[in-house]
């Protein structure tokens, strides 16, 4: 049986329109960034019946507390991540 990992995904910026707090989801060990983002979309659609903002997920990045993940990264432990829409600080 394939091992699964538990992820907690913090939501920021425009995601707060849809859900406050964070998402809990499970992915396969070694899941790619794209797979994690797909899972985030699915979880949001379950939680928020009207959610159709796939473009927001598409344009967002995943990150840990220390760095933004790239498409060559993958997930191989249960951990906290954040999904980050395009930024505009300052």
């Amino acid at each position, binding site marked *: 049986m394939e091992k699964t990992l538990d992820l907690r995904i913090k939501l920021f910026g425009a995601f707060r329109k849809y859900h406050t707090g964070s998402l809990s989801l499970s992915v396969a060990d070694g899941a790619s960034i794209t797979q994690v983002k797909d899972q985030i979309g699915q979880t949001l659609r379950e939680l928020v019946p009207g959610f159709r903002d796939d473009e927001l997920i598409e344009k967002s990045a995943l990150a840990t507390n220390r760095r933004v993940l790239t498409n060559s990264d993958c997930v191989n432990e249960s951990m906290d991540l954040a999904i980050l829409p395009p930024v505009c600080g*300052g």
Partner: protein
Amino acid sequence: MEGLNHLGVSMAPLSTEAAIEFIADPEHGAADLFIGTVRNHNLGKSVKGVSYDVYEELTLQTFRELCDEARANWGKELNIFIEHFQGRLDIGGISILIAVSSPHRDESFKACRFIIEEIKHRAPIWKQEHYTDGDSEWVQGHALCSHGPVTYEGCTKDHAGH
């Protein structure tokens, strides 16, 4: 001697005096302070306030990286103060303060400008504008890409195409 950093995300009003006091240095003859404030209009809409959402841990990490990059470019002796506000501000409220001091002025100006430009593109901070008509909207921004120190973490399983 390496200069000092003060890096923060604050829910209390930002203090220009604290910034100026922090960077003061008897060996430095110049300081540049950038103050970002909430203005009363944007893209033709009348604004009454802005809420700032900040991913604090990664923002502070980004600030640390920017300090390292600024010192690599403009001198290790730079003193650097960066604070970003988190929460809601009215018009005129200070959203960001960046202050840099250096022996000579060119380095202060360039490092301060560099830091604000990079923050706009790299720091995980978002703003939601509140309009006088009661509406509010998350402002479109810059898509993040990874800049941090390269700490490649290998995959345990291969996912072709990703």
